[in-house]
C-alpha cells in the first residue's frame, strides 16, 4: 500500500552521535508533521511543513533538532549530538492539504531511537 513510510524502523546510537530519520509521506500530500512519542505517552508535536516550507517548529526541544523537506516530499529529521533523553519513537504523519485542521493525518510506523 502507499502509506507513510519511515526509515530506519529502529536506530541505536551512542550518546553524542548524530542521527538522521527519514519520512516518505503519501504521494501528493501537502502537509507533513513530525511527532515524538516517549514510552507510555501520547505523541508530542515537533514540527510541521506545508510543501517545502517549515511553518511551525515550535515543538523542537533544542537546537540539536533540525528538520527539512527540500523538495516538498521526503523529509528528514536530524538530531545532532544525541542525548539519552532523545530516546523515543519518532512519528511522521502527512495530510492531503494544508491550512484548516479538519484534515486526517496519516501516520507512519515510526522510528524507535535508543540512545545508549
Amino acid at each position, binding site marked *: 500500500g502507499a502509506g*507513510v513510510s519511515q526509515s530506519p524502523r529502529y536506530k541505536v546510537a551512542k550518546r553524542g552521535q548524530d542521527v538522521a530519520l527519514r519520512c516518505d509521506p503519501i504521494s501528493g500530500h501537502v*502537509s507533513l*508533521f513530525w*511527532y515524538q512519542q516517549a514510552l*507510555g*505517552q*501520547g*505523541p*508530542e*508535536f515537533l514540527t*510541521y511543513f*506545508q510543501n517545502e516550507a517549515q*511553518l*511551525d517548529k515550535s*515543538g523542537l526541544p533544542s537546537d540539536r533538532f533540525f528538520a527539512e523537506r527540500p523538495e516538498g516530499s521526503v523529509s528528514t529529521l536530524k538530531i545532532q549530538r544525541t542525548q539519552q533523553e532523545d530516546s523515543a519513537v519518532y*512519528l511522521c*504523519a502527512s495530510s492531503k492539504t*494544508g*491550512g*484548516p*485542521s*479538519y484534515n*486526517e*493525518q*496519516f*501516520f*507512519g*510506523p*515510526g522510528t524507535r531511537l535508543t540512545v545508549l
Partner: protein
Amino acid sequence: QQQVKQSPQSLIVQKGGIPIINCAYENTAFDYFPWYQQFPGKGPALLIAIRPDVSEKKEGRFTISFNKSAKQFSLHIMDSQPGDSATYFCAASGANAGKSTFGDGTTLTVKP
C-alpha cells in the same frame, strides 16, 4: 500545562462491554477533536473525529460525545471485541494550526 487530559490510563472490559474514555481540553481555540487507535509497533490510526458544531458522531461501533460548554469529549466503543485491545488517544487541534495536541493515552484490554 497539559492542554488535553485523558482518563482513565487503563481500562479492562469483558467482550461485549462498552468502554468509555474521556478527555478534557483547555484551549477554546481547538475546533477539531480526533480519536486515534494505536497497536504496538504501529503508528496511530484515525478512528473517528468530531467538530464542535455537533454533540455526537457515530461511525460503526465508535461514538464520540462532545460537550462544548464543559470542554469535554468522550469515546464509546459499543459491543467491544478482543481485537479492539489497543491504546487509544484523543487529540485536539485548532483551525489553521495543523498540529495536533494529544492526550496521554488509554490502554484498553477487552477480555474474551
